[in-house]
């Protein structure tokens, strides 16, 4: 697959180069006359995904399917045929509080990227968030290390399996892949809520010396326990509170992690005053591009912060005429003397939610 992916990248580059050459030979769109009429199939672009009509139609379809299923079950019962009454994929598991539950992750995500399974111990209760880019088979066993004896539940990206046996705490397990794509590592995150049920767990984790942001509300305590990975010892534990930034170098770069805890879940409204030379603009939920005008020799100061749990390394670039002048990261602001008068852009190169990318908030001041 890696080979295929490399070939696809190369093919895409060839197509890109050829189309750029082709486009260069074409007249400018501003001097060209288009005879295209208004597209007639644009409603699907603008129609709300959950329109009344779609809900009604899907509900009607669902009712018909349910009725048909019921009819089949009734007929099967009358004929004495065995009926499997278990609900496949039901997101509930049982496990006695205090016992050790082992969770196996058999990740067949894109088969080439993640292949290994792993186990985590002491997961008797809580919510289990599987954050991968594909389906994951989660097998829960009680007290046995190797042979699954219980349910198997196939989770899709972003699904949460509720496992709440004693009602004391919530936990999230995040499985992700290492930077080299060869191994699966995972973090076990318990969020113990002072006011249980008042907040949702919103967690993200990364590997290899990067940073994860755990968005919580004030007053929560977070306990992060490093689960066993391919190269890391088991069960390192640390307590942090909201606002802490913790660096935890271990000597092994694959195990280094810095965890930032933030209570900043609110986003400010956009307040930039267009046309002014001096001002401060806040770009909330910046996930693509935002434009601002500035003059040559003005001093730009750009600070960036995450809006919620985010992948580290998400940068905001300052761009003019397609050229990147510099970038800012959360915790690493950018100061820049602008070289020219014109329209500048803030650019977040790519938002890939499956990798943990989230929109950023950028605060820009120009003097």
């Amino acid at each position, binding site marked *: 697959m890696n080979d295929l992916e490399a070939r696809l990248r190369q093919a895409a580059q060839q197509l890109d180069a050829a*189309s750029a050459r082709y486009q260069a030979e074409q007249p400018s769109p501003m001097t060209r006359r288009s005879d295209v009429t208004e597209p007639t199939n644009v409603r699907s672009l603008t129609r709300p995904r959950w329109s009344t009509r779609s809900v009604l139609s899907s509900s009607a379809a669902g009712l018909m399917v349910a009725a048909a299923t019921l009819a089949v079950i009734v007929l099967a019962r009358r004929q004495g045929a065995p009926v499997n009454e278990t609900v496949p994929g039901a997101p509930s598991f049982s496990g006695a509080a205090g016992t050790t539950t082992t969770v196996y992750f058999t990740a067949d995500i894109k088969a080439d990227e993640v292949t290994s399974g792993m186990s985590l111990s002491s997961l008797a209760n809580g919510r289990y968030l599987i954050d991968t880019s594909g389906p994951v088979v989660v097998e829960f066993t009680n007290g046995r290390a190797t042979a699954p004896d219980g349910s198997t539940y196939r989770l899709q990206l972003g699904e949460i399996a509720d496992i709440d046996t004693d009602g004391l705490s919530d936990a999230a397990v995040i499985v992700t892949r290492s930077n080299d794509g060869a191994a699966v590592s995972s973090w076990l995150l318990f969020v113990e809520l002072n006011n249980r049920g008042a907040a949702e767990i919103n967690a993200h984790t990364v590997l290899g010396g990067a940073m994860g942001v755990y968005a919580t509300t004030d007053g929560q305590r977070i306990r992060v326990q490093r689960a066993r990975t391919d190269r890391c010892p088991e069960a390192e534990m640390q307590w942090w509170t909201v606002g802490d930034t913790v660096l935890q170098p271990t000597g092994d770069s694959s195990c280094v992690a810095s965890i930032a805890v933030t209570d900043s879940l609110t986003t400010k409204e956009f307040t930039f005053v267009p046309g002014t030379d001096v001002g401060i603009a806040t770009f909330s939920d910046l996930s693509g591009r935002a434009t601002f005008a500035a003059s040559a020799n003005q001093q730009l100061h750009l600070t960036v912060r995450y809006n919620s749990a985010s992948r580290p390394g998400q940068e905001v670039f300052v761009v003019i005429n397609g050229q990147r002048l510099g970038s800012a990261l959360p915790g690493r602001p950018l100061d820049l003397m602008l070289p020219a008068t014109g329209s500048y852009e803030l650019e977040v190169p790519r938002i890939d939610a499956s990798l943990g990318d989230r929109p950023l908030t950028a605060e820009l001041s120009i003097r």
Partner: protein
Amino acid sequence: MAATALTKDRFRTLPRDPSVLATVKMIDVSSPSAIEAEFSAFVTLRAVRLRRVLCAHYGVDVGGDLHGEALAYAWQHWERVRTMANPVGYLYRVAQSASRPQRRWNTRHSFPATMPEVVHTDSDPTLFASLTTLSEHQRVSVLMVHGHGWSYAEVADVLGVSVTAVTNHVHRGLAKLRTELGAQP
């Protein structure tokens, strides 16, 4: 009639994304040079995505023609297009409309190009041959996600389909490619 008006109004509605709003607000629409600069920036920075999708869909030359047609349309209707939340997705539909005459005359869209000299496939002819066996949406999804590194959501935005649909296109497209190429999964 009412439905058509509603559709147009929705496209006219300013997006909620503050970053896009910023783009809209900061341009002085009374200045022709500012509008031209804004459109040029759009062509340089954002329409590249449209070009990539169209080339993956229709091939380099036909896709390039449709891209030019869509941009010409965008320039003529820039007052409206510039305020759209998803102008690239909209222009993709414009390009699809522009491709109708060719479909009407039963012109077969050839990938990677109708004229072989337009794109050189010498380095990996088998891959390009295999890509032609995919459906258009599969090919676009596979090339955008694995060739250009787009997210599924970005592809879904442009194609006007759900993320789940893109996921299916990618997975089925890759499976078919592996079969065609005899690659190990």
